[in-house]
């Protein structure tokens, strides 16, 4: 059973944290959007936009920090398309989200073709131009924690910090209360003087920033270039984690860790244990279906999700 021991060890958990990072950011992003009442299935497209912008800007500026900023801005811009179409123009949120996902299969490929004369990928960045590993002084002297939590990319710490911050914002601030009110009962929120549209814009735009940063982690953190469709469904897994975690920041975080662990195990199993990786890959999706069917508790979405708000005259 030497194979199993090679798979389950401390470095597996460290790799779980790394693989969960883009999921955590995208899932928390999705949470802000959906808690405000706007379904965001465009997370995949937003992540792709972030991943591509990060890589492209880093190629031109040689600074991964500018790349990271560009990813946040790109995510914001794509989310703005989503927000304007689904809030201002009351378009079907799922349809717009699907269109954005299709759009950003094409846009990075077209732009990289024009900029770098390659279809679909950006030039390879030298290692020193990708995001650095952060050595955390306090933690690195503690035996087990150092292996788990030190020497990750900065984005990993952004993601880990975003969980308690999101919890605080959502449940302990006026902004969070209003956002949730707008997603549960927009009529009542409107009567109480809260601008439904403004809160929803804020939620969707926040989701763009977070998912964009999550995308950047893929291209200039884990890798050193953007490749065609490099998110490979992570936006949808993040969406699944959000539902599995019942639209709660801590729940979504734990779900992302679980799905990240499944991913980490399937990567390590390749060539070691003879279980087809496909069986591990489908775990997040099957679990989400099970939760939606109500077998493990019930996942109840924000009540007003998916419906444009029309102000009564």
């Amino acid at each position, binding site marked *: 059973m030497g194979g199993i021991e090679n798979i389950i060890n401390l470095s597996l958990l460290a790799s779980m944290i790394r693989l969960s990072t883009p999921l955590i950011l995208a899932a928390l992003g999705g949470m802000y959007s959906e808690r405000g009442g706007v379904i965001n*299935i465009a997370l995949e497209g937003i992540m792709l936009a972030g991943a591509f912008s990060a890589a492209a800007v880093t190629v031109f500026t040689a600074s991964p920090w500018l790349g990271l900023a560009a990813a946040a801005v790109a995510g914001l811009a794509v989310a703005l398309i989503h927000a304007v179409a689904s809030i201002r123009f009351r*378009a*079907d949120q799922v*349809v717009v989200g699907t269109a954005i996902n*299709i759009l950003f299969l094409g*846009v990075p490929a077209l732009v990289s073709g024009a900029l770098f004369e390659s279809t679909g990928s950006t030039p390879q960045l030298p290692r020193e131009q990708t995001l650095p590993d952060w050595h955390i002084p306090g933690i690195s002297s503690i035996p087990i924690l150092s292996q788990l939590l030190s020497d990750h990319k900065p984005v990993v710490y952004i993601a880990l910090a975003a969980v308690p911050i999101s919890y605080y914002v959502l449940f302990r601030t006026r902004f969070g209360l209003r956002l949730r009110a707008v997603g549960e009962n927009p009529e009542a929120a409107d009567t109480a003087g809260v601008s439904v549209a403004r809160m929803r814009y804020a939620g969707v735009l926040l989701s763009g920033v977070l998912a964009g940063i999550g995308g950047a982690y893929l291209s200039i953190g884990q890798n050193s270039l953007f490749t065609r469709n490099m998110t490979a469904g992570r936006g949808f897994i993040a969406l699944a984690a959000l539902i599995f975690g019942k639209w709660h920041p801590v729940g979504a975080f734990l779900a992302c860790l679980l799905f990240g662990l499944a991913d980490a195990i399937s990567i390590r199993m390749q060539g070691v244990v003879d279980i087809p990786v496909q069986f591990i*890959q489908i775990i997040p999706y*099957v679990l989400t*279906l099970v939760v939606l069917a109500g077998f493990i508790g019930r996942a109840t979405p924000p009540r007003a999700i998916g419906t444009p708000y029309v102000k009564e005259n």
Partner: protein
Amino acid sequence: MKSLLKELLFPLIAVVAAFLVGGIIVWMVGDSPLLVYDLFFTSAFGSIDGIGYTLFYATPLIFTGLAVAVAFKCGLLNIGAEGQLVSAAFATAWVGLLLPGWPALVVTILAMIAAVVMGGLWAGIPGVLKAKFGAHEVITTIMMNFIAAAIVSYLTQYHYRRPGDPILETFPIAERVGTTVVGPHLPRMSALLAPLGISFPEHLPLNVTFLLALVVCALVYVFLWKTKWGYELRAVGTNPSAAEYGGISIPRNIVIAMVLSGALAGMVGINDVLGYRYRYYDGFSAGYGFAGIAVALLGRNHPIGVLFAAILFGALDRSKLFIDIFTDKVSKDWTVILQAIVIIFVACEAAFRFGMKKRAAAKV
């Protein structure tokens, strides 16, 4: 007549607007929009070859467009056509692989049935989850897409791949020998038209499935607008509470709509496996399921509209290689971007209508 014009007006505006924005993108990338438009029209419609390929590429989109439209008529958004057609295509090939040596015609018919049943089944699961537990069909169908892709790729990779084959595909179920095909398959248009004395280029993959798609268009129209079941399904989509008050079962119609939708999406498997590749090839679908959403929206969820929208998107598919080759900078991804822009414009249609109403109201 006036209402027909009104129905046509918005999709046309959306398409023209999308082409204009697409032209601006071409110009920004550094090529001539006029060249790209010219390449699009001549490659897609300028020759028998072009038209043949355009219709071939349109065939799967007719099915997925109808699939999305039928679900939409019941108030459901089936974004799982992709998983339904992938599982159905595998089932189609599976029948051929399980029944070697059976008469080709029998296997062909059984394989076609398998495609429809498998697609219906795969969509039926989200249908039941929605009807019984209220699980949102958008989320469940997304999950079902990934599950289908994983299971089918597992079966192909571990059980039905020819040893040493570098491509992830199953054993063939039929083989081309000279100009004829031996084994279960649907004939190409050239083979079908030859006995009638009409010569059609043999290399064109356009096959009988396209004719099937036209027939299915008509059947969907009859079902939705000329039968009691279609009426009930649409009633649930337009006004569920009124439908329920009138004694129509909402859960029952949700399941029916999803199963029908999946069955329609499943027919894509017939085109690819029996009409074109004669095997299951993993990754054969170029996002047909998602393009189906665009086709249904643009076609206003009406079979005739779906047919025309599918031909437009088929033409884009056909022209993308030519645009890629004969321009300096524009890659084939331009056509994908154009699809997405069409969807966004059509989806924001309510905005145009709303704006017009407001202006009309202001006049009074």
